[in-house]
């Protein structure tokens, strides 16, 4: 079959909402876009373990400690699913990880902000996971099968995480004056970065159009962002807290919340590597990887030895 014919089949599958599977023919650009996006997503899970991991040793109750630990562990699990999904497209986990460590691959910029108080753990769960879920729910219907299926598994756990984050803030909001201040302070610091998670405005977004056509993405950045604002602006009332945006206001006509302009200079600056923790996060990941080299080597040498012994026994 000619490339034209293959492409036609591919596009008709997309059209008919038939998932593309690893062995199917797919355009190179589709494959590349997916590899980029899935590995970026995987890296976000892995790097995302660090800001929250920062509070495991200091969680203020045993119950919260256990919940947090389980949550960070879930993120590692999500990383695994996604590295596997990326592998179905012909990249190895090692390659993917090397791209992270060399700075070639990106991860969600939100994780370049520091967790300064326990309230931040709540805010990450509520706002950051909340924003992530909207994206992930959409991706459950993405056109590439293994990615969509990974997303289904991830979404289930993620919405659980969001509720846990909200629950942390709820406890703070009902607590002492110091706790309520901690709650508001965390919301203040995480609100804008979480809005940035949806990426640039649709008008500025480089990859969006093609991705939408291929049904990798099924909603635009601005659509998702609006959905998020509408959701959070309601939930924040339950906390008796406010969002740090003087322009936030219900628009009766549009049936949406209006909100202020994002500081895009900050956004691009953090993407470029100048966030408060970019260096620290990458250094931590590289250190874990480098210091684990002898462990991985030992495991693989042992596995070979064992295999050789078993083969000898059989022979």
């Amino acid at each position, binding site marked *: 079959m000619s490339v034209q014919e293959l492409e036609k089949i591919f596009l008709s599958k997309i059209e008919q909402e038939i998932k593309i599977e690893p062995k199917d023919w797919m355009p190179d650009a589709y494959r590349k876009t997916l590899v980029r996006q899935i590995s970026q997503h995987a890296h976000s899970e892995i790097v995302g*373990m660090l800001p929250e991991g920062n509070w495991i040793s200091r969680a203020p109750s045993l119950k919260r400690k256990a919940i947090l*630990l389980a949550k960070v562990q879930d993120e590692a699990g999500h990383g695994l699913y996604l590295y596997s999904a990326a592998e179905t497209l012909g990249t190895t986990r090692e390659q993917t990880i090397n791209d992270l460590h060399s700075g070639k691959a990106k991860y969600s910029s939100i994780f370049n902000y520091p967790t300064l108080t326990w309230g931040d753990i709540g805010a990450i769960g509520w706002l950051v996971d909340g924003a992530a879920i909207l994206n992930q729910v959409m991706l459950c219907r993405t056109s590439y099968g293994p990615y969509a299926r990974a997303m289904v598994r991830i979404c289930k756990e993620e919405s659980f995480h969001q509720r846990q984050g909200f629950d942390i803030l709820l406890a703070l909001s009902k*607590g002492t004056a110091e706790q309520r201040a901690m709650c508001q302070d965390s919301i203040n610091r995480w609100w804008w970065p979480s809005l940035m998670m949806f990426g640039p405005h649709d008008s500025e977004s480089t990859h969006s159009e093609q991705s939408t056509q291929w049904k990798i993405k099924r909603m635009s950045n601005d659509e998702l962002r609006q959905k998020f604002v509408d959701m959070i602006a309601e939930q924040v009332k339950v906390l008796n807290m406010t969002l740090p945006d003087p322009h936030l206001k219900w628009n009766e006509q549009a049936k949406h919340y209006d909100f202020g302009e994002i500081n895009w200079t900050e956004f691009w600056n953090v993407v470029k590597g100048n966030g408060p923790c970019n260096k620290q996060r990458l250094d931590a990941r590289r250190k874990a990887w480098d210091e684990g080299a002898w462990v991985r080597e030992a495991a693989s040498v042992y596995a070979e030895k064992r295999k050789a012994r078993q083969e000898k026994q059989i022979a």
Partner: protein
Amino acid sequence: MTNEITYNYTLHLADNALILAQRNSEWCGHGPVLEQDIAITNISLDLIGQARSLYQYAAELINGSGSPASEGKQAASEDTLAYLRDSREYKNCLLAEQPNGDWAQTILRQFFFSTYQFLLYQRLQQSPDATLAAIAEKSLKEVTYHVRWSSEWVIRLGDGTEESHDRLLNALDELWMFTGELFMPAGYELEAAKAGIGVDVSTLKTEWEQRVNEIFAEATIPTSGREGGWMQSGGKEGVHTEQLGFILAELQSMQRAYPGSEW
């Protein structure tokens, strides 16, 4: 009286689990392989779960005792017991508080501890104290996995590369002196054993050594030459290494800074 023995004995079991969980959790996000990051975190979670059940039981005992210690204070809970006792009141064995070191040291610490805990809980299942027996029974499934996982890693590192073998030997050099304490009963352990509630840990030693030696043999680690070496002790009676103070400063920082708050 029996109550106080059980209280101290239960705290000791809880402290062991919590402190080792706290140590293991330092790996979370920093493990050598993603799968093992998940595995060690899982062990942490199991141990925190055990600690919580045990602290809850200890809190019940002390709250119900009407003892002078419980008067005029806020009611004990899993969190007051974990977060508001200082290092001289902690009863964990020294092994649990030792630093993570490299992966070999973490693995070996886990292997030594889990093998011990497995034998202990196996016996504790038969305790006439129904709560302790139930916790032991429930935990035993988890601990069985911890033993298997850490044994496999001991073998893998011991029989892996020259470097991993050397690192395991080095870990052994760091940790062996803390294994003796596991089998030297503290006062409350002796009394708990006498009262039939607890386990006489000295009786577990032989089987522990056998199991350790079996795995060591497979890991090509010498199984002899360590007899008669000096063993550190004191942790169970609250005389710890200098490590514990720092662990607790971090662990307890929030509860200490914001006393009496709900989280």
